[in-house]
């Protein structure tokens, strides 16, 4: 089993609430992603068994939704908005800055497996641009100094958790 008890119970509870069991597919993917940080075929198979929906339907839905990475990513997934409102406030140069600071290209993960950097479509933080999402959290009105501080704090947090 890849999914832990809490995730399985969460998925079952969600499935019981909907008028149709198929509606639980997206909540199940979300719960699995929350635990794993990515999705893949093995996870679809487990979800399929839990909510009793054919594997192919799970895989088909999952492939549509871009919010879930389909392979393992770093401990922190950095998603930078590259849309118009953020771009007008320096998002392109912020992406450059993050690449050089982390010494990785877009879509890549740092060698210590700490950060994965991608750019995404509008995240709805337009009035607080430029912005990025790291795992579940939004970071807005960003500057170089703020980015430095955020990354340092996340690294320190990871070290703390490792201990």
């Amino acid at each position: 089993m890849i999914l832990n008890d809490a995730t399985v119970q969460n998925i079952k509870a969600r499935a019981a609430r909907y008028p149709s069991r198929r509606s639980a597919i997206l909540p199940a993917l979300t719960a699995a992603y929350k635990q794993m940080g990515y999705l893949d075929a093995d996870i679809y198979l487990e979800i399929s068994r839990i909510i009793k929906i054919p594997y192919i339907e799970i895989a088909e839905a999952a492939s549509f939704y871009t919010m879930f990475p389909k392979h393992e990513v770093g401990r922190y997934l950095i998603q930078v908005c590259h849309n118009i409102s953020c771009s007008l406030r320096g998002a392109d140069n912020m992406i450059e800055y993050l690449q050089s600071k982390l010494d990785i290209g877009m879509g890549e993960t740092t060698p210590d497996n700490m950060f994965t950097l991608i750019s995404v479509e509008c995240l709805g933080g337009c009035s607080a641009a430029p912005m990025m999402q790291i795992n579940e959290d939004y970071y807005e009105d960003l500057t170089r100094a703020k980015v430095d501080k955020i990354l340092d704090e996340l690294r320190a947090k990871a070290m703390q958790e490792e201990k």
Partner: protein
Amino acid sequence: MERVLFKYVDEPEQYRIDNYIKNGGYQALPRVLKELPPDELIDLVKKSGVRGRGGAGFPAGMKWGFVPKDIGRPKYLCCNADESEPGTCKDRVLMERDPHMVVEGIIIASYAIQAHTAFVYVRGEFVYPAHRMEEAIKEAYEKGYLGKNILGSGFDLDIIVHTGGGAYICGEETALLSSLEGDRGLSRIRPPFPAIKGLYASPTVVNNVETLANLPHIINRGVDWYRSHGTEKSPGTKIFSLSGNIARPGNYEVDLGTPLSYVINELGGGVPGGYKLKTIIPGGSSTPLLMPDQIDTPLDFESMAQAGSMLGSGAIIVIDERACMVWVAMKLINFYAHESCGKCTPCREGTAWLKQIISRIENGGGQTGDIELILDACKNIMGRTICPLGDAAVMPTESIIKHFRDEFAYHIEHGKCLVKTDYPFE
């Protein structure tokens, strides 16, 4: 100017039910349940003239009126919180800061159409707003505003928060329903309209967060008061999300019909840094441009249409003279090409072609005839798709070429920008 939806937006703990009640919340609901049969409620909302705040501006009461009565099938209400139109970030604030106002609106709307299950479809990235909604719903159950026999009225309602998976298309109402049913978020051909055959093939109404948030206020203060805000055909207030090259970006609530210039210059502080205003995308990234000489256009559905654009979702994106418009067009089309669900060929292939052509112009590889090619592709997308995403890609693209054709021509001829875009990040 009176703030209605944002009256308590700056209070630190307005999201808690006790504070919402203290500030006049959950007063509309008991009145509705005791005094207003669904028909009368629908009539009252029709008279208020409140129009959908998600972008289309369809009268909310009329939408409810399409739901058939007594057909022996369950009915559903969906609160559309899949806020994804570039530039738009208002529903998020309502859910984060004043979620009970949205919950109360959902209960009122559900009662109007006699739905006993309602869904809040929140975009997946909005983990925090979704959490706030979940917490608010939990509090509402504890106080007896949700569940069985609400406040002794005999009316039952459950609300389920459903989070998405990162797809702009799911904000389109039929795609939202596909997604809720566990499918890929593909839009569906209409008719049948959701009011007749929507979620699980049952009558369904999809209303935007901000639309629903208006309802408690309309009930509490009446149609005449509501209509004292805004214009005859666009009554009420509206939240505008101000972004881009603006001194004070943010969400501002003003009466519909307020001049665009007031929001940009008075509230937003104008374009900073001494740069000149170049153009404005006034209603979310899908809407045609307004030029600086149109800055006094009133922000209501009719005036914006008359000026050649749309009120849309109320997302005003301000662009200064430092932007190359080919670059702007590329940023926009990249979005639509990425977000096209792929169901309709004109949109799937057309947005991909537009992206390819505009990108090659931006990157110095533009060819003679590319401008005509873009316009030709636009013509073959517009009006030929099931949902409005295709049109949404075309409208800003055509508008940018109409107003800034010279920048495209320069780009193609010289292989570089007339204005080199380089917004600093410091």
